[in-house]
């Protein structure tokens, strides 16, 4: 029985990581098509960096992701501060309102965003992309930071005030350092969510603001080029680097909502 479980769990890992391994291997393929192996080459990496259209969409995705993540993290920080620290009237309702975009189907959000933007007369483009992505990343950013904030000893700000610290000093010397891991986690999660999003982007992007996922998706019709394998490999490497920088243990703790005790 134990052996069956052991093999099953190995299979799960294979299932999870085989596609990624295949992606990396095929990014080194010299062939013109994905399904035939013709030896090792860095050809597709060269082509990738020569593809101005694709790089343009990558740039759009990165900038939108950064801005949306910044906005969501900042707003999420303030709302979780308000909801945890102060006994706001209608606290439950506020919290619910912030979290609802997590449950509402993205397609519905996309349609409503489009309706709102066109009614108000905001042209689809950078601004609408960033706002749209903020809507879907804010719940995540809020949840992660609320968890960390509510596990802080509520008398810490009192203690800082008692020791002569004003509101800003308390934030700079106590609250912020303690919440830094959670803020970072909220930012990374928001960025990742925005970076991979297709549905909201479909409704909110305009001419010249095509995101990378939209571009890849549209290529499905004309056939995927091995160039995308190279791009995918680079993104996987980047993600691994981030995880290594933040630290695996740290990441697990902050996603679980614990405070920084190190």
């Amino acid at each position, binding site marked *: 029985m134990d052996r069956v479980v052991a093999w099953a769990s190995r299979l799960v890992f294979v299932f999870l990581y085989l596609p990624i391994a295949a992606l990396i291997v095929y990014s080194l393929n010299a062939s013109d098509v994905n399904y035939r192996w013709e030896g090792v080459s860095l050809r597709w990496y060269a082509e990738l960096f020569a593809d101005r259209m694709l790089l343009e969409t990558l740039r759009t995705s990165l900038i939108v992701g950064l801005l949306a993540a910044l906005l969501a993290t900042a707003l999420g920080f303030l709302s979780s501060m308000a909801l945890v620290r102060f006994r706001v009237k209608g606290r439950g309702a506020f919290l619910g309102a912030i979290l609802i975009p997590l449950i509402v189907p993205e397609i519905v959000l996309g349609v409503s965003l489009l309706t709102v933007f066109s009614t108000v007369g905001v042209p689809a483009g950078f601004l609408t992309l960033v706002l749209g992505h903020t809507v879907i990343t804010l719940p995540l950013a809020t949840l992660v930071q609320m968890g960390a904030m509510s596990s802080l000893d509520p*008398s810490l700000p009192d*203690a800082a005030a008692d*020791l*002569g*610290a004003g509101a800003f000093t308390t934030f700079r010397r106590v609250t912020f350092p*303690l919440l830094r891991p959670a803020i970072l986690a909220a930012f990374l999660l928001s960025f990742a969510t925005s970076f991979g999003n297709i549905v909201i982007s479909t409704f909110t992007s305009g001419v010249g603001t095509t995101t990378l996922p939209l571009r890849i998706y549209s290529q499905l019709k004309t056939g995927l080029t091995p160039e995308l394998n190279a791009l995918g490999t680079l993104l996987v490497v980047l993600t691994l680097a981030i995880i290594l920088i933040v630290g695996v243990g740290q990441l697990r703790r902050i996603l679980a909502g614990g*405070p920084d005790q190190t």
Partner: protein
Amino acid sequence: MTETPAPVAVRLRGITKTFGSNTVVRPLDLDIRDGEFFSILGPSGCGKTTLMRMITGFESPTDGSVELAGRDVSKVPTRDRDLNMLFQSYALFPHLSVYENVAFELRVRRTPKAELDTRVREALELVRLADFGDRKPNELSGGQRQRVALARAVVGRPAVVLLDEPLGALDQKLRKEMQFELKRMQREVGITFIYVTHDQEEALTMSDRIAVMSEGRVLQVASPIDIYDAPASRFVAGFIGSCNLIPARLEAGRAVTSGAGAIPADTAEAATRGLADGAEVVVAVRPERVTLHADPAAAPAGAVRGVISARVFLGDEWTVHVDAQGLTLTVQVPSGETGAALAALADGAEVAVSWTTAAGRILPAVDQTSGDAAGATATVTAGPTSEGAAA
């Protein structure tokens, strides 16, 4: 008690706190002297924590004023008040080392580096944690964390340190040690300590003076000995230590019970407090001041006869319940000769109990200050209130 009282460190005048329709602290005046170890003692919910938070400035009083060293600070924010607090949870900054926790206030106040280092080291020396500066709070035991919190509270040399049930989280043995330690440290630094607790033993062992609180009122402010020997009210007698509270009526200069007749009580002293003939009273007698006579025939005149209804052996003493003509009296009998004689008796054996006139303190049957409210906490029947309302 002293001829020239020390200057006042904290003066509260008519201070009141109301949350909605709930009055937590009723208008009260309190003077805490410079350099004294002052305890505010009362059961949970008596308003002591709120009172303390008004002194620190975390709460603003609904009415009345707070003065520190003669200056009205009612409108001054916490960070500009010359006092520090030791929190019940210690509230150490988990991301900072012990050294940086202690140095926090000095850094915020931009103390020069050399002076900062000297003072942090002195403070760590005081709490005997000189070698722990590099540790993080989560690497310390509960007792050590508490010392760090204390070092952090005194490093800025405030005029007053407030301590909110600081020993609550420690185990019994450590708690006893810390009582001596806190007292020693307070003497060493000479800072006024205001110690908030529901533990009467802590208050008795450490304090110069104690304020007993109940239902938002201060019932009595006195030295531990006076609080214990001369409680001003029925609530105080029942809350501090254990006490037999025997209902009686003053008649012809004697305290007369309905069942056991006249019992020894200091009526002369009671008269100075306005308790005269006709008053309904309780006679408060500490169990350790009651003498048990194993042979009722040999008991002195005025002794009350009764039978042993229960007894417990505690090692250094016995606690005995005696049914005496409708009264249940708790008696403490030291181990040794009397104890040996007691051990030889059976439950239900006839004995007699006696106490001196001075040991029977007469108190109003109903507390004047807190009305019927205190009666609910102190026992209404003639039974003893062992441990009072200890939480």
